[in-house]
């Protein structure tokens, strides 16, 4: 289910008295997983987030999977219960991903549980969660300099943070320039909603094979940034394709190989 559709569902349910007693997680859980069992994943699923966020619009969240004890993970959902768009992102992993690792930054709108739910190859769901104290991350534009943000739109920066070595897991960092405008502010002059404008999809491939796919929403911070793993089987080209809610498409590629 597209995260943005889920957002509309959540606001609809929140308004309906019939669901007034349901907490947000129950609603999201039902919408995403329809009654499936979710097991406790804390033995192998590590979710790091600050107890008290310093900047509610830029909250670093890190998810790592202990490769010794983990089943093979295909999909990760990052859920922030009390956000207007609670499904912050859906991340798809592939054989080239290695043991899934993901660090990104999210907006947190209120004191809330943040949940990482993963699905393995057999379709079993596991979850880890953390409580984070923060407020206002979604309703405030994090645009410190709108001119620079719009001029830079779609630029990307990519870096390998570990040495390139064939067959060895590498950790990559990808930063995408985008205001990720939440659409939750009103222009006080015109009394119109300032339209949302945010990254909806990121596709990372290496030598044409998928490494990471991200379905994004407004809960990702301005300038979506991802730390992720992949295992290169040879030197080659890493390609990134980004699509946003205004249907802009950005593509870039980098040649990766042993440092010479």
């Amino acid at each position, binding site marked *: 289910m597209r995260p943005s559709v889920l957002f509309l569902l959540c606001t609809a349910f929140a308004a309906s008295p019939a669901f007034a007693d349901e907490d947000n997680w129950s609603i999201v859980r039902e919408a995403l997983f329809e009654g499936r069992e979710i097991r406790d994943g804390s033995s192998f699923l590590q979710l790091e987030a600050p107890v008290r966020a*310093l900047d509610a619009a*830029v909250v*670093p969240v890190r998810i790592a999977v202990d490769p010794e004890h983990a089943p093979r993970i295909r999909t990760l959902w990052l859920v922030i219960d009390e956000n207007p768009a609670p499904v912050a992102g859906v991340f798809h992993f592939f054989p080239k991903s290695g043991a899934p690792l993901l*660090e990104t930054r999210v907006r947190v709108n209120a004191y809330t549980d943040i949940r990482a739910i993963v699905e393995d190859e057999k379709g079993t769901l596991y979850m880890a969660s953390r409580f984070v104290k923060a407020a*206002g991350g979604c*309703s405030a534009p994090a645009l410190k300099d709108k001119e*620079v943000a719009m001029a830079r739109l779609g630029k990307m920066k990519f870096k390998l943070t570990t040495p390139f070595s064939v067959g060895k897991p590498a950790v990559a960092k990808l*930063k995408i320039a985008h205001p990720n405008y939440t659409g939750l*502010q009103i222009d*006080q002059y015109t009394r119109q909603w300032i339209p949302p404008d945010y990254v909806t999809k990121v596709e990372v491939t290496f030598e044409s094979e998928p490494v990471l796919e991200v379905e994004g929403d407004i809960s990702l911070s301005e300038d979506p940034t991802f730390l992720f793993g992949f295992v290169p089987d040879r030197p080659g080209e890493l390609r990134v394709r980004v699509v946003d809610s205004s249907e802009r498409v950005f593509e870039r590629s980098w040649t990766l190989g042993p440092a010479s």
Partner: protein
Amino acid sequence: MAGARFVFLLLLLGGLPAPASALAVEEVAPGIFVHTGRHEEFTPENRGDLANLVLITGSEAALVVDAGGSRLLGEDWLETVRELTDLPVRYLVLTHHHPDHILGASVFAQAGAILVGHERLSRAIRERGPLYLDNMRRLMGEAAAGTTLAFPTLPVAIGKPLRLDLGGREVELRAFPTAHTDTDLIVFDPMTATLVAGDLLFMERIPVIDGRLLGWIRVLEALESIPARRVVPGHGPASAPFPEAFDAERRYFLWLRDSVRDLIAADVPLSKAVKALPLPPQMHWLLAAPNHGRNVIAAYTELEWE
């Protein structure tokens, strides 16, 4: 004129019942009066009295810099101004869009002042105003009563200083590229060589990066060429010698820039960066927690693009 005011304030200190409205002010240079704000966060008790507010008088008109953090405070500030001068308040200059500087502005607009600000100020207030009002109501309760937003009508463009004549006293307004915020504006009075720096200068209270660290460092360099002898910070004492007043802030920014660059080069992820960079003990700033951590995050996300 100044002498009578000084005696008036002395009498206040001496224990006569103060008029409810008067805010304490200090005349830092002839015709330049400063009310210093508190080094606190918004509370019902302080009514948003966090920032320094300035009055500049010429022979025909008065100019006020910044309006305080609530309507109630703005009312008291206007009353204070009226006690200090009979001249009409022709201009209210807003140094940037933060709530502790702008939320009293409607009082001055209704009193007939022209609101002056950075060319980007209107848009910034439009986009962030509702959030500020919500936050203020939450933090100040009843003390936020009646607070509404007011918008500037006289913009100052970056690179195009605006001169305003108050009658025998012409002050210069300059707008800057993104530094503390993306709407920073200063006022310079050549007559007394006084620079009203707004939040481009924090003293005692830790600077807050809500713009660009590198941009702010560049603007500090640009300010050095202003022929000022004293500066009024946005937060801190009523006045301080120029340019020494900027030293502690500059030192903090250069250390922050260089240290965060090192963190990024060493691939320390954002999730670990704040813990990795505590404020050095020799840098004394009030309200360092949580603002220093926020500055680390702001610097990190900015410098990652280098």
